[in-house]
């Protein structure tokens, strides 16, 4: 698989303060890579290093095999960027602002831009200062997508968008991704990351804790289950099954969480008369939070 973004021992110190330490990871072409971590973990620092807004203290980053610092001008031709703290020219209209941003680069396809605007229901004729936060965000998104970049670096992309627009945005990400575009999405929003990302990297205290497929994480996800039996049962019948945790029994109702595959658990259930089985989507949030909080245990 072709590598779109690659960092090698990427390190940034602000004086003596930690920015990020020793980041080494790859993002493959055409994937949606989620970059997760609590506030101050180093997400923004990483983004800024990739975009050459500042230089690494040591280590390096490459984008399509071009050094992010030495070749930054070339790289920016095919990068689209949505900053977390979005600032636009308040006195301009959306149209003016897009024309302003487009004038700094080539390859802006205006048919595509207007199409995007109508999909996201962005009003480009209104002065930006009169727009709500979510509507400003739409203009920020269009600016990031407008030149059909090969790599999109997005910081909290759906912040302020209403649920309908979020769905439209997810659809857009899927479509653009299918055309081979690579996404690097830094986010707090765990359901969103679950929804759109192929892989995630979790950063904590400036260090990369894990880089993992969403599918693999899901295998490790905790699935809460509730089983209603026809007759009261005993907990020891389920305690020995691998991956089954937190068992509690109230008469004929069993509550537990299952990690990974349900297969052995279901086979055990089959030995009893089951009245009802209530399950929920495995929740990655707890896994993420577990990674976030690991420091105490380390």
């Amino acid at each position, binding site marked *: 698989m072709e590598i779109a973004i690659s960092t090698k021992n990427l390190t940034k110190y602000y004086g003596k303060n930690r920015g990020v330490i020793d980041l080494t990871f790859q993002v493959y072409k055409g994937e949606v890579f989620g970059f997760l971590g609590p506030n101050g973990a180093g997400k923004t620092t990483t983004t800024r290093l990739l*975009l050459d*807004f500042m230089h690494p203290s040591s280590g390096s980053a490459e984008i399509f095999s071009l050094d992010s610092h030495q070749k930054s*001008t070339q790289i*920016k*031709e095919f990068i689209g960027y949505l*900053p977390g703290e979005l600032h636009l020219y308040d006195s301009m209209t959306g149209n003016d602002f897009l024309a*302003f941003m487009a*004038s*700094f680069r080539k390859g802006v396809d205006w048919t595509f831009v207007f199409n995007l605007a109508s999909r996201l229901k962005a009003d480009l004729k209104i002065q930006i200062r009169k727009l709500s936060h979510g509507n400003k965000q739409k203009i920020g998104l269009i600016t990031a997508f407008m030149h059909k970049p090969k790599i999109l670096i997005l910081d909290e992309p759906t912040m302020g968008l209403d649920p309908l627009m979020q769905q439209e945005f997810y659809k857009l990400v899927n479509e653009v991704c299918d055309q081979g575009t690579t996404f690097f999405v830094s986010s707090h929003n765990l359901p969103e990351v679950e929804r759109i990302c192929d892989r995630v990297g979790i950063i904590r205290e400036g260090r990369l804790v894990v880089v993992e497929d969403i599918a693999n994480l899901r295998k490790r996800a905790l699935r809460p289950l509730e089983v209603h039996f026809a007759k009261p049962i005993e907990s020891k019948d389920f305690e020995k099954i691998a991956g089954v945790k937190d068992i509690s029994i109230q008469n004929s109702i069993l509550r537990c969480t299952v990690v990974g595959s349900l297969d052995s658990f279901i086979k055990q259930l089959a030995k009893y008369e089951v009245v009802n089985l209530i399950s929920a989507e495995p929740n990655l949030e707890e896994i993420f939070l577990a990674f976030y909080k690991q420091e105490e245990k380390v």
Partner: protein
Amino acid sequence: MILKQKAPSQLRPFWSMAYFSLRAMLRNRATFAFGFLFPVAFIAVFGLIGGGGLTISIGIPDSEQQGPIYEALKQIKAVKLEPGTESSLRQKVSQGSIAAVLLQEEETSVPTLFISAASPQTAAAAQSLVSGIVDKLNLAQSGIIDPPLKLKVEEISGRAFRYIDFALPGIIGFALLGTAINGTAFGLIFLKKTLVLKRIFATPTKGLTILLGQGGARMIVALAQAAVILAIGVLAFDFQIVHGWLTLTEVFALTALGLVAFLGFGLIIAGIATDENTVAPLTSLIVLPQFLIGGTFFPIDSLPTWIQPLANVLPLSFFNTAVRKVTIEGVSPDQILPQLVGLAVWGIIAYLVAARTFRWE
């Protein structure tokens, strides 16, 4: 995937930056006021006060405005005859607002000239004028038609220098320094503060391109200011440009050079200032002394001697002197070499300091 290894052309972002920066400047009221409105007002004021030359006001009471002395004085261009009552005229003399009062109740009585101690130079001129007339009348009354000693007066043709000829180059300097320093410092601080700069840096645009674009826009404004000031000066106030188009070209070239040097100071301020509030005092610190003692509105020669050596080496002084030399004296470019070197040295110092202090964030 094969990606272009060549760095993308900076021409497009340069024009964008220049265009949007120019647009922003033209929409800014301060740019318009300091760059165009004030200079035009200055020209109007200096052009009008420069017109009169020396006038000597001599008061003659209303009742006594007759007789040969009065008639002779009326013929002299430089003399302004002030009407009024005797007491009001005497008061004006003691204040120095008129040079003298001439009293002669009847044609036969002895004329008396009261001269003003408050305005000694014009008083002396008034005295010699009136005594000249009286001498002439005495000669005529004595019957001497052909006096033995006669003064022969010949006029040598030449240009009458007026205050506008001195002031106009200074006005160009005033507008130029304002545009270069205020404009740049505020423009860049605004870009930094609004964080739109970050959006531009996410495009294939180099930092240097942004600075060049900003500089390019200021160049256009500075040349336009010089053009407007010169046009009004030449058309409305007959400002002298010795060699016509050649002189104009020289002034524009000097304006361009001056702008490049002064932009460096704007960059220094944009580098050390944290926001608009710190920009204002810093620009005043650099700009105001140069307006006052840089030969902008008053000649450096008229300043106290101890300050003149300092005043002479200010960046704006070099510019003002160079422009005056080409407009008033019509000298060739090699004769303003000291000023050109002076400007260049200031420019180099400014950019060296700016390179150390300027930060994009």
